[in-house]
């Protein structure tokens, strides 16, 4: 091992200065904004984008914890979440296009056959 490796490793400034709770609050705020979007909007595509926001809130939190604890497993998990999100978007947008082709709208209030 090189002598420089034996010294105290370089710790990013952000980890020394910012407590982990700030990242918790930030990602909770993002998640809550996503929930507001899912509950208040009617356009299926905007609802889909709000789901992406919630996924990214989870990603940010996983990366923050993994970076503060210096554990690579959390970042590998984020990588898998991104892969699953890409697959989800491909299938979900195909479904939305199919709905639009059949009903000429992407309003979720229009598709209420399964409501009760």
């Amino acid at each position: 091992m090189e002598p420089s490796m034996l010294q105290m490793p370089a710790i990013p400034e952000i980890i020394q200065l910012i407590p982990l709770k700030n990242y918790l609050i930030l990602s909770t705020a993002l998640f809550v904004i996503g929930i507001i979007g899912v509950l208040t909007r009617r356009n299926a595509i905007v609802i889909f984008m709000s789901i992406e926001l919630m996924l990214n809130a989870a990603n940010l939190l996983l990366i923050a914890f993994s970076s503060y604890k210096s554990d690579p497993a959390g970042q590998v998990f984020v990588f898998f979440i991104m892969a699953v999100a890409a697959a989800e978007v491909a299938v979900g947008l195909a479904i939305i296009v199919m709905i639009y082709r059949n009903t000429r709208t992407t309003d979720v209030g229009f598709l209420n056959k399964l409501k009760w």
Partner: protein
Amino acid sequence: MNPTLSIFYFLSFLTVLSALMVVFSRSPIHSVLYLILTFFCLTGHYILLNAQFLAAVNIIVYAGAIMVLFLFVIMFLNMKKEDEEAKTNLTKIAAMIVAGTLFVILFGAYRKSIIGAYNPYEYNSQVGMVESLGAVLFRDYLLPFELASVLFLIAMTGAVMLGRREVGERHF
């Protein structure tokens, strides 16, 4: 004020602001553009947290591939002018109460909880680099990695199947 601190607070502010604009802007095109801005801000956070590999992947996969797919579908469906009549005010107020309650509950839980600080003696700043993540990915998580490829194959087949025109379908 320390530049790192100012960058953190500026990025956080911009992230929350553009996320709010995603939800509250009228036109879906503006929503997508604000979502791209949100993803770039999150990439800035990842770089601050020393996760270079995921920062690059976030730009390539989210801002590159997924958002182009969204934009393409919105332009394909020609939804530029949005005449969405708002949901009833009751629904909106109920949604705000649900979201606000969730935020307050989680915030209260964080205030009471004790989160351990980082360990300065065992800290490894190379964790987020391609080299270390690749070693973990191909040693400990090899099976999920291969299963992800199967998932992509199924998703691709499913998207093609869903997009195909059926025989009895109405045409416009």
